[in-house]
């Protein structure tokens, strides 16, 4: 549902059915709503059976990259005699993204169940949920739910009397966007600085504590119990014409819409219907100027691109952007694009872990140049310089944070060039930067 709003007819509530329903937070409340049936079923299945079911569902990673989940799980070694780990990525820090938080705080047991099933699928006994430090309330709720699940015997040395050990451990981060990158998350969990690691080795070979590890997003794991309960065919049938993008997706919509919130759509819904129907469209007297559809790291879209775009992995890619995390930022005609792109660049400069020269220097320079443009001190050559910097920040670093900083700058200059030129020519009055 479009939490905190009632369910809109354009939505397909699956994961979000119980958002806003505090009764679903407890073990008993969750069980009475059909919870833990899927885990009990999974405890009778082989890892291959679980992986095959998830493969057949078409579920793709909801953390940003959209990698097929069953396939990812199948990369984990079999009979290697090593300890395996599952990491659940609850670091949710990509600007515009606030959907995992609703899963964690309203349906914590859905996540615990998903983690437990994911662990069984990859032959792990331990799942760590890495939750960002700022999520104080969700963290407390999640920890309480985990404690309850242990007390009820759903977790522990003998999960539901199956003889199998299943542990779910909540680990709190301490403020760093980069810890959402999978290998940075592993370093952070190990008690290190959150620097991303060079790949290979990939996590399935050497991940957390150097052992085979799978990492999945909160929403990905929370979808798994539904797939086991209702079947892969049901999930795969949730689509609007594109069999590569199946299931429902939570889209957290923010910015200048009437009803910001977390909406659950069947993949394939026209973006226009999401923004103008479900979210109620623009504020009175305003018009749409830009949409960043998948968290701040994806290309900015124009209203023309939104007009014909369908909201799924391939649909948004065809429109020149990405579904990403599903964090949708809507901007109306009051938005100063140059200022906001500057502010995004500053975000990446602040969050760069600084191990790669191109990222450390590139995010810093990009920010400083954009700041001077906004302050009215830009040079005519600055736009070329920004494009040049962006090129040197793309595809050249250990992780893609560097690329993510370049993306809004490049798409912003390409699609809103006249706004940059207005600052450069003095046609637009300079603005003070920051608070």
């Amino acid at each position, binding site marked *: 549902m479009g939490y905190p709003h009632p369910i809109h007819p354009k939505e397909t509530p699956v994961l979000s059915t119980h958002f806003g329903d505090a009764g679903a937070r407890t073990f008993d409340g969750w069980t009475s709503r059909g919870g833990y049936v899927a885990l009990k079923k999974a405890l009778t299945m082989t890892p291959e059976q679980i992986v095959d079911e998830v493969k057949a569902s078409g579920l793709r990673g909801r953390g940003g990259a959209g990698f097929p989940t069953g396939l990812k799980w199948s990369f984990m070694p079999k009979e290697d005699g090593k300890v395996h780990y599952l990491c659940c990525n609850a670091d949710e820090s990509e600007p515009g993204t606030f959907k995992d938080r609703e899963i964690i705080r309203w349906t914590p047991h859905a996540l615990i169940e998903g983690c437990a099933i994911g662990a069984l699928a990859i032959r792990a006994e331990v799942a760590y949920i890495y939750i960002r*430090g700022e999520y104080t309330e969700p963290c407390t709720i999640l920890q309480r739910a985990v404690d309850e699940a242990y007390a009820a015997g759903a977790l522990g040395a003998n999960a539901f009397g199956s003889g199998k050990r299943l542990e779910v451990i909540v680990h709190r981060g301490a403020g760093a966007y980069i810890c959402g990158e999978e290998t940075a998350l592993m370093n952070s969990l190990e008690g290190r600085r959150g620097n991303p690691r060079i790949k290979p080795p990939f996590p399935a070979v050497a991940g957390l504590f150097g052992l085979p590890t799978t990492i999945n997003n909160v929403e990905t794991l929370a979808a798994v119990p539904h797939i086991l309960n209702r079947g892969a065919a049901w999930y795969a049938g949730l689509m609007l014409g594109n069999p590569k993008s199946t299931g429902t997706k939570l889209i957290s919509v923010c910015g200048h819409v009437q009803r910001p919130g977390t909406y659950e759509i069947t993949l394939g819904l026209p973006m226009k219907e999401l923004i103008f129907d479900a979210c109620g469209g623009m504020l009175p007297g305003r018009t749409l100027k830009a949409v960043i559809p998948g968290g701040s790291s994806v290309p900015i879209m124009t209203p023309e691109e939104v007009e014909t775009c369908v909201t799924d992995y391939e649909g948004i890619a065809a429109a020149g952007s990405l579904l990403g995390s599903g964090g949708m930022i809507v901007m109306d005609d009051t938005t100063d694009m140059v200022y906001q792109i500057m502010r995004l660049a500053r975000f990446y400069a602040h969050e760069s872990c600084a191990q790669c020269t191109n990222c450390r220097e590139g995010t810093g320079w990009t920010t400083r140049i954009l700041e001077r443009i906004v302050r009215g001190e830009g040079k005519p050559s600055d736009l070329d310089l920004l494009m040049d910097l962006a090129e040197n920040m793309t595809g050249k670093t250990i992780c893609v944070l560097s690329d993510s900083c370049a993306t809004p700058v490049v798409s912003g200059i390409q699609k809103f060039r006249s706004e940059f030129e207005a600052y450069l020519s003095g046609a637009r009055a300079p603005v003070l930067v920051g608070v």
Partner: protein
Amino acid sequence: MSSHSAEVHAPVFVGATLAKLEALYPKYPTRMALLLPALWMVQEERGWVSDGAIHEVAEKLELTPAYIRGVITFYTMYHTHPVGRHFIQVCTTSPCNICGAEAVARALLEHTGCGELGATSPDGRFTVMEVECLGACGFTTPMLIDDDFIEGVTVESVPALLARYP
């Protein structure tokens, strides 16, 4: 008096807090993995992570103080200096920014008496920090006061909100 005075560090990890830390040992295959949880315990008890506490954590987890300092400085949420009685973190990243977050941040600076970001008010009551996306972008403007996550803050609601934190 400087924070480097020879004041004796009263140990954090005694009694219930020590038990809480030790209860985590079996959950991780290494001691190092307990570093973030241990630092959180210190900050919950003392409000910040002092040099004495760093030495204590180092000893408990068999790490060096320099290593721990290196880790602490990577993260934004640990304080290596005392801060105001109430620590405010307000988001000003773009999604909040386009909905007026900078004006909220300025109102916070004004009504707390902090004057500038990162400074503590003269009465020691507040410190205000600007932070990046808090993961609540649909509920502008979100902020944290200590551990309280507060949504929908406006310039107008700031004074009444602050009054709840004496």
